[in-house]
């Protein structure tokens, strides 16, 4: 897993509507709607700075947020990848 770099679609490809604590995303390339809970929106935002592997992504997130349990990043990226919201570089 280490070394895989992930890319998110640009901001223009996703319309986001915040609805009580959750985000509802309309993803233009797929025409699909995803309802996402934290930390998915934060991860997608962090990837807007450019492609990143898991370690780099964690660095970006730690710069903004307090959290523990870094290893869960792989499960979160897996979900986003399966939904087509991130892809491997």
């Amino acid at each position, binding site marked *: 897993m280490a070394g895989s770099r992930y890319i998110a679609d640009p901001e223009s490809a996703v*319309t986001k*509507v915040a*609805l*009580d*604590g*959750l985000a*509802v995303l*309309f993803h*233009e390339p797929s*025409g*699909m*709607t995803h*309802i996402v809970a934290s930390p998915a929106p934060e991860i997608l935002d962090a990837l807007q700075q450019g492609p990143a592997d898991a370690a780099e992504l964690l660095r970006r997130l730690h710069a903004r947020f307090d959290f523990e349990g870094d290893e869960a990043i792989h499960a979160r990226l897996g979900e986003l990848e399966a939904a087509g919201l991130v892809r491997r570089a």
Partner: protein
Amino acid sequence: MRHRLALQIGPVAFRIGSAWRSPLDALARLYAGYPAPADGLCDFTVRLEPERPWRRFLRPSVAIRGDYVLPDAAPLALAHGLLAAEMGMNLQMALGQRTWLLLHAATVEKDGRAIVMTGESGAGKSTLAALLGERGWRLMGDEFALLDLASGALLPFPRAISLKNGAIGVMEAEAAADRFGPRLAGTPKGDIRHLRPNAEAIARMGEGARPALILFPRFGSAAAVRGVGQAEAFMRLTQASTNYVALGRRGFDALANLVRGVPALAIDYPDTETAVGLIADFRRELAA
């Protein structure tokens, strides 16, 4: 096809063809007073036909077909041909409707404000809408609500109301006998009797209304009301819509606007009278 009938219901026109006469006779009686489609042009075609050629005569069974069909559909007995015609029209809407966002919901309106009631089959929305339709509300539809993607208004789709089992008696006490279809005993969904909406509902079937409240009713428990968050309402309405995904971005925008602009409540109710009372309260609060 041997027998045919065209019906205009709200903004949608259907052409129904049948291998037998009886289902269309029953349909024509049930929809007495509805206008004919302009120039005979129709949005959808429904066909009631024998599953195999000999099944037109031998133990006749009605297969529901048309422009759009589903696999897994089992035929109905000819005695239930009216139900087959109704299901055939529902099927075309569920699979083929791409002009409006289709919500599996009953809608009633008063003073231009509409209440949308959605929930699984058996939640009692049909009965509730039928009863409200006799108690000073305008029935816009008991099965499908049509949300206009551009304006956010709801359009009426006042089909005959499909009453099941216990609801049949409730409504027989409310509405004139000549508005009912035949009692269909022992269908796969139990006993069914159709009720034609009242004259006002038919006369105003071209007139939309603004959504004012989204209700998720559930029949069978003690009366309770709770607020439903926007995200939950959004998710539940996508699951109540057969064409949300196919409408793409326009569906997303329309639904997001709906849940952000209109409050949503889940209500449990032990009997229909209680629900009618709750809804009268909501209306007073909305008006206030």
